[in-house]
């Protein structure tokens, strides 16, 4: 699995982890973001998928700036992938839905 972290710089000039993107082999890149991103995060998630943007070119959709930067791509071993993503979700305060036990999806 390949992962790239996105950092934002706060009022004091300190960079903090804010979001990340990952991809598993041939799968589309998934952009993961916290609730401060809101609808903006949702649009970017859609654009990355729609345009089939790779991790190395993700700046095309989310450009870097004085207060926003992408870190280098990290390669994570498959056996550590799940725990690595869980850790990133915690660090970036990304909500993770639980199993949906009470919902009903009507196919027809």
């Amino acid at each position, binding site marked *: 699995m390949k992962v790239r972290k996105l950092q*934002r*710089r*706060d*009022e004091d000039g300190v960079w*903090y982890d*804010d979001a990340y993107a990952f991809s598993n082999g041939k799968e589309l890149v998934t952009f993961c973001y*916290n*609730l*401060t*991103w*809101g*609808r*903006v*995060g*949702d*649009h*970017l*998630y*859609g654009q990355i*998928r729609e345009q089939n943007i790779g991790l190395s070119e993700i700046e095309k959709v*989310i*450009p*870097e*700036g*004085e*207060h*926003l930067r992408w870190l280098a791509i990290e390669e994570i071993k498959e056996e550590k992938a799940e725990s690595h993503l869980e850790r990133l979700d915690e660090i*970036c*305060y*990304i*909500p993770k*839905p*639980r*199993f*949906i*036990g*009470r*919902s*009903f*999806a*009507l*196919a*027809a």
Partner: protein
Amino acid sequence: MAKRHRELLARLDPVGLNRYQITEVDLQTIEKYLKIIQARLTIDSTWQELVQYGGPYGTSIAIHEIVEIRLLRNRRLRPLKQRTSTLQRLLAQHIDAHVIATYEEHIYLQEVIHRIFNKTFQVATLIKANRNNTTDLQLFLESDLGVYILKENRVEYARQTIRALKGVIKT
């Protein structure tokens, strides 16, 4: 009061504004809040989207934000006094505020779509149609807001209807 907030208020749906008691001051609050949570991003913010659409779709965005802000304020969290990084944590700790805001946004969309197009969609169907990512839908479905029905076969039709709603300037 800034003229641009008054002008934006005039471009939003009066029925939705009245139901959620949204005033010019609330629009100012929403702008400030979004400036904090989406500070220093290099892409267009939710505030710009709200202003761009206006009409009923812009109203749905305003409803989401003001409901979230009011819930946070009711918990004495003072969202306008926080730093972006603090709000990152607070929003994750008060995820139900976001879920309730999503629910109210789509209850309104359900009503306004029925009013304008005479079409009816389930709330969950509208959430799925109105988001690229399924996280909001999943958070909503697993919440304590009730049991909701998602009609997969209506999602694309709902998506087309929302697209049409985005073009509606006045109700």
